[in-house]
């Protein structure tokens, strides 16, 4: 009868979870941080791939006339650019942040279902290889826009089934990630971490995950029906066989509208973490932020047809979707006002994450304004399918979602790597990006209003000046992102050691700042003290 307490370096290999070595570490990993890193790197790579496609588009549009590419190839570029940026860059990047941060933020050692986590990531590289390979098939890649509207999409050559399978695989990946997040947040919270204590990033991701599982089956069903229409003689969307091409649009946007919120809600969470830290004040209106996010999530299900004001819906439908869509401005406004109130009477400093967060608030609000304008159905009869729309959704997605991702990367990079990033390069990246993104997208409001339709490879000469300007902005923006990649590389390689708190006073803003930088391989094997949790803002 004795108690032995000793250190033993050999006896516990069979249950200890240090990283395996080399390439296989990444293939077989079930660790939330490893998988988060994989997601983030994939997101960054696809951001450059999709960006290169955008530069093909902007090069062709630099001046009137066709200089570089065939219109059919141009259409493939617009289609793939969108699919890759949405499903390849922004969604994986958010999933990466969720994997890294959620267990750390809720006081859990890992995600609830680590093996499924591994599968949900490894589906991605295969689907993107498949999607890219469609470019080299007979007839080229899908060229009907990311919305894949029939009947046009049925004219795609051999690429159609591969594009649809890609969508299925990406959908499966997202669903598994979403389910994992839901189960983790509901079942793995540390004692004391009640739902209304969750950081907003976790809240926004939970709502995002619910949106994902609610709408993904609709998208999967819709694209499957495209396949059966093409190959098995069904007529879901074929008027000649008793179907309706507009039905596809309803299905697509029933998925697609929540999908655009899937791309923006986690950004709201990120911004709501960063602004309080650098304002040195608690977040204003935490509860109303949670309710506003939930309201936006709910509203996203009942507004889909505002993407279809021009398909000839009955008047009552047009008016209903107008009113419902306008309502979204209320909770969105609440969020912006809350951010302003958080900064108000704070003691702000302007490190790179804060700069991107402020730019997010300013420029996302711009996108919000044009969104409000487009919700008005009669006005949208003019705006629809013009560059005004292109400007709108790029304002919410680039200075919106992508800026939030930049901000999040700079904010948590010291936590992940244990090294501070190069602040001077970060600021340079910020200014170049913010200026060029406006040069790129602001003029598109004007050409859109003046009558330039979207998705055209060539345009009338009166649009030349603004398009040239836009292309210049796009190229500066594109190449500025190399700085971003370099800053990340440099921080991984080394640099000033980061403390566990990283940012002054950050400890009060989240559990992750109580872990070392970099954090242990398994996050909270030492449970966070209840006092820490109850002291969080």
């Amino acid at each position, binding site marked *: 009868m004795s108690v032995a307490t000793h250190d033993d370096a050999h006896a516990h290999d069979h249950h200890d979870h240090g990283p395996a070595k080399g390439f296989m570490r990444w293939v077989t990993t079930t660790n939330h941080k490893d998988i988060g890193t994989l997601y983030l790197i994939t997101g960054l790579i696809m951001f450059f791939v999709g960006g290169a496609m955008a530069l093909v588009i902007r090069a062709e549009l630099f001046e009137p006339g066709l200089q570089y590419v065939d*219109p059919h190839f141009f259409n493939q570029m617009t289609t793939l650019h969108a699919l890759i940026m949405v499903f390849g860059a922004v969604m994986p990047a958010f999933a990466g942040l969720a994997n890294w941060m959620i267990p750390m933020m809720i006081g859990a050692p890992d995600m609830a279902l680590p093996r499924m986590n591994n599968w949900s990531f490894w589906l991605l590289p295969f689907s993107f290889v498949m999607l890219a390979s469609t470019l080299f098939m007979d007839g080229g890649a899908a060229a009907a826009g990311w919305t894949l509207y029939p009947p046009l999409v049925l004219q795609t050559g051999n690429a159609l089934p591969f594009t649809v399978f890609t969508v299925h695989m990406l959908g499966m990946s997202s669903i598994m990630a979403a389910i994992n997040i839901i189960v983790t947040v509901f079942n793995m919270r540390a004692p004391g971490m009640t739902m209304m204590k969750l950081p907003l990033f976790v809240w926004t991701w939970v709502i995002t995950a619910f949106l994902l599982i609610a709408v993904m089956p609709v998208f999967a069903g819709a694209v499957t029906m495209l396949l059966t229409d093409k190959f098995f003689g069904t007529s879901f969307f074929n008027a000649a066989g008793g179907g309706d091409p507009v039905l596809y649009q309803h299905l697509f946007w029933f998925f697609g509208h929540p999908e655009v919120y899937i791309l923006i809600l986690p950004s709201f969470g990120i911004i709501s973490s960063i602004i309080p830290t650098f304002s040195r004040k608690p977040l204003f209106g935490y509860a109303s932020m949670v309710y506003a996010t939930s309201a936006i999530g709910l509203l996203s299900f009942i507004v889909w047809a505002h993407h279809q004001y021009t398909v000839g819906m009955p008047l009552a439908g047009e008016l209903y979707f107008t009113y419902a869509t306008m309502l979204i401005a209320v909770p969105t406004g609440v969020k912006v006002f809350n951010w302003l109130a958080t900064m108000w009477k704070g003691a702000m400093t302007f490190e790179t994450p804060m700069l991107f967060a402020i730019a997010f608030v300013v420029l996302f609000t711009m996108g919000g304004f044009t969104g409000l304008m487009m919700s008005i159905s009669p006005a949208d009869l003019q705006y629809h399918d013009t560059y005004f729309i292109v400007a709108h959704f790029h304002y919410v997605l680039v200075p919106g979602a992508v800026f939030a991702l930049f901000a999040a990367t700079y904010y948590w990079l010291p936590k992940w790597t244990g090294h501070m990033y190069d602040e001077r390069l970060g600021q340079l990246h910020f200014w170049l990006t913010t200026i060029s993104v406006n040069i790129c997208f602001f003029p598109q409001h004007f050409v859109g209003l003046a009558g330039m339709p979207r998705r055209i490879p060539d345009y009338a000469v009166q649009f030349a000046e603004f398009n040239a300007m836009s292309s210049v902005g796009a190229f500066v923006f594109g190449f500025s992102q190399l700085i971003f990649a370099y800053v990340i590389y440099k921080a991984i390689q080394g640099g000033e050691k980061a403390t566990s708190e990283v940012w002054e006073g950050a400890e009060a803003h989240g559990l992750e700042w109580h872990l070392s930088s970099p954090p242990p391989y398994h996050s909270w094997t030492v449970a966070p003290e209840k006092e820490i949790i109850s002291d969080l803002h």
Partner: protein
Amino acid sequence: MKKTLQLLTSFWSVIWGVAYAETGTGTGVGWGALNLPAGVTPDSHDIHDLHMTILWICVAIGVLVYGILIYSLIHHRKSKGVEPAKFHENTVLEVVWTIIPFVILIAMAVPATKVMMKVYDTSESEMSIKVTGYQWKWRYEYLTDGLGKGIDFFSSLDAKSNEARQLGSKIDPSTVDHYLLNVDNPLVIPANKKIRILLTAADVLHAWWVPEFGWKKDAIPGFVTDGWIKVEQPGIYRGQCAELCGRDHGFMPIVVVVKSEAEYKQWVAEQLGKKEANKPDISKSLTLEELNAKGKEVYAANCAACHMPNGEGMAGTFPAIKGSKVATGPIADHVKMVLHGKAAMPAFKDQLNDVETAAVVTYQRNGFDNNKGDSIQPADIQAYK
């Protein structure tokens, strides 16, 4: 309120030098192309006013939000030595900024509803025109007795723009009149008549949009959508297809020539007369050379966009004519394919007359190294219709 808005609008126009109301095409030129055109129909004026109203409301909210933000950024920074406040909620404030936007929205919804009801009211129209979208041209059919019934034609990108827009054409688009916004046969309508536009499509989705008329609407295969216009001023108005419809989506413009009622009547008479005079003489027998020469023109105008000028098509999407089973197989199947179409191949029986059909079939069988040597006469086409 409305007066102030108009004042602000004209102020906006002055500072930016907006020229949209003055140019013939109305879409403005160069740096001046900044805003929605005020338009030439009642709908377009309403929509323009609505647009300006929302725009100014957004500007006002923007000034407030950005003003507060900028004030905060200047005064509430750590380098000023301020102590951060501790507050994190204020119920009154939160209720206020939920309710005020709600009220503003209702104020926006009321005019929006009114305008939408007007846009949707196609009743009491005086004439109707059916517009059909094809890959990649428009077809206009006049449906109203005495106001052009019987006129039916296709309208596609004019030859000059078409030449200049080819990849590597080396033609400077600025030397082409109304580059990409000009057609061979414009739609002609009378001024000051309420015209109902019925829209449909033959193959894929298209959308018919002339910005000066204030709206666009999708043309959907198998379905009919509609809208109305009543153009106040004679003139020429230009627009484009606004729904992605494939390779040449950017190259199927819309040109509408609006004439005074008298001139319109004259135009209708001319058209109907011409139609009678130009009725193809299908009884006449044509030589192989005549058919081939005519067929080459028809091919360039109707087939080359998909099957390519060299007849090699696009692998996977558009089959080649060169060496194809159809063009080298039985002539009956070939004619049926052209007349009735199949899947993505449109039916040409309404687009081509018998002479053109015979010519293009003959040309496809003899050109592109197919060298079949056979031909078909216009008189024989009717049997396959």
